[in-house]
């Protein structure tokens, strides 16, 4: 049995009196799409932050691509092939969309202690960036300042920046947050094309999106994973239904 691409054991994190992550175990096999769902306050974003390296856990281990990355900061994990998109859009608003993606390319194209040649003239940065923009559907919007893009386009840009770093694992934190029906559908289409080629860990509230994309679902409540399994099994799971009392587990 090959080791899972991402392996989490006994992850714990508390903020003062609040236990945000209470002994989380998680395995994600290469090529899988795993969705992490749960009611508000379950600790999903905190989990993502610990996986990406933005937050240090109090206890537990994280193994990625065969190496223990628990102590590695975010930039190092990115260099190992782990990419993240943010729940609250986090882009470079003053730069153009193309510049945004080119920066992500630049981060993995050697060091940036270069002081003379204009970065915009480097085809090795611009071409891959254009390709990724096309891939996410923003091909025509490359020269627009990122801050003036529509909300849905900005979410697409988030994905583009993650993709431009050539990741093996994508951590997507609510990719369709704040999107209307059409935009969500387009995003799901995009994410479908990524399935299999990238391993994906997806945090989402929108159940349509989850059932459309996930191979497996893990349910978090109060910082713990209470159930993991195939979508149908999760849908039928009585504990899960109880946890979602009052919330719609639809379709």
């Amino acid at each position, binding site marked *: 049995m090959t080791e899972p691409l991402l392996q989490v054991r006994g992850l714990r994190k508390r903020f003062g009196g609040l236990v945000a992550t209470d002994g989380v175990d998680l395995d994600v096999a290469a090529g899988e799409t795993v969705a992490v769902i749960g009611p508000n306050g379950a600790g999903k974003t905190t989990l993502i932050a610990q996986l*990406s390296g933005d937050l240090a856990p109090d206890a537990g281990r994280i193994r990625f691509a065969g190496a223990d990355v628990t102590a590695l900061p975010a930039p190092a994990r990115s260099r190992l092939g782990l990419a993240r998109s943010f729940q609250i859009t986090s882009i470079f608003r003053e*730069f153009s969309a193309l510049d945004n993606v080119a920066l992500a390319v630049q981060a993995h194209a050697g060091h940036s202690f270069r002081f*003379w040649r204009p970065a915009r003239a480097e085809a090795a940065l611009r071409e891959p960036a254009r390709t990724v923009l096309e891939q996410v559907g923003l091909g025509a919007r490359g020269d627009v300042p990122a801050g003036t893009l529509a909300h849905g386009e900005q979410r697409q840009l988030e994905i583009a920046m993650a993709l431009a770093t050539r990741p093996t694992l994508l951590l997507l934190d609510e990719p369709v947050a704040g999107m209307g029906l059409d935009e969500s559908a387009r995003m799901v289409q995009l994410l479908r094309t990524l399935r299999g080629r990238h391993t994906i860990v997806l945090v989402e509230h929108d159940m349509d999106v989850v059932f459309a994309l996930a191979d497996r679902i893990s349910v978090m409540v109060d910082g713990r994973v209470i159930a993991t399994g195939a979508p149908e099994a999760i849908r039928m799971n009585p504990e899960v239904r109880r946890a979602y009392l009052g919330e719609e587990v639809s379709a």
Partner: protein
Amino acid sequence: MARRRRALAMLAALAALAAIPLVAGLVNQPFYLDLFRRIMIFAIAAVSLDIILGYGGMVSFGHAAYLGIGAYAVAIPALHGVHSAWVQWPLAMALSGLAALAIGAISLRTSGVYFIMITLAFAQMLYYVGISIEPWGGDDGMRLARRSQLGGPLDLGDPHVFYYVVLAILAVLLLVGDRVIQARFGTVIRAVKSNEPRMRAIGFSTLRYKLAAFVLAGAVGGLAGALLANQTEYLTPSYMHWTRSGDIMVMVILGGMGTLAGPVLGAAAFLLLENVLSAWTVHWQAILGPLLVLVVLYARGGLWGLLPGGASRDD
């Protein structure tokens, strides 16, 4: 487009500066030569601060410390008979750069208001150290034994030669600065200012780039300090006082930060204003103070932003 306009504006400014000695000669006012040379020296200091403040978003309130170190790096060797600019000036840049490395290594681990206070505190520490070292004049400061020697026909004792040397340095700095901003390094610095967590998420170890920028800015500040020592032929620890850091910061903001050309304008405006106001009243700072407050409140783009089409910042 913004770049083209900036380049034209800078060329115009440099041409104007080049003409000053001729004008000063025509109206027989050598004082202007002195004044504009001083302006250019502070412009060099302000441009160096703009790199980290305007482009990098690092509010370093201790920049004057590097000018002070640069000045002492000229005066102390001169005291011991070493007058070659080719020794003194690289030494000034190296020592300031080193100080920036030490201060930056500690300060850049913090952010926000902590960073401002800490850079302020460390710079002031250097000031206090400067006061307490008696062999180098302590509180009273020291004279520069002799101006730096560049060798050959470049005699800094000649006001015109000195003027054009400073002008040349400023011009080179602006040219190199422009390239650096557009290059990979400058792009990283600007992006870090825009959204540092995002930079880390896509794989940049941001601390090393910020520190590098901090060191570069410090080194150029040291060069400005070396030139300043030559300009005044006298220096005191007060060159490093935090209010001097405030002055340089004002020049950057007043001129328009993050524009490279703005700080040059700002240095000119600040020193010319000081010149004019102090002729009226010895209490000119009572006017400058509120003026600053007003600029901050209402004219954030600085002088550069007030120029036609000046509002579009660097990109």
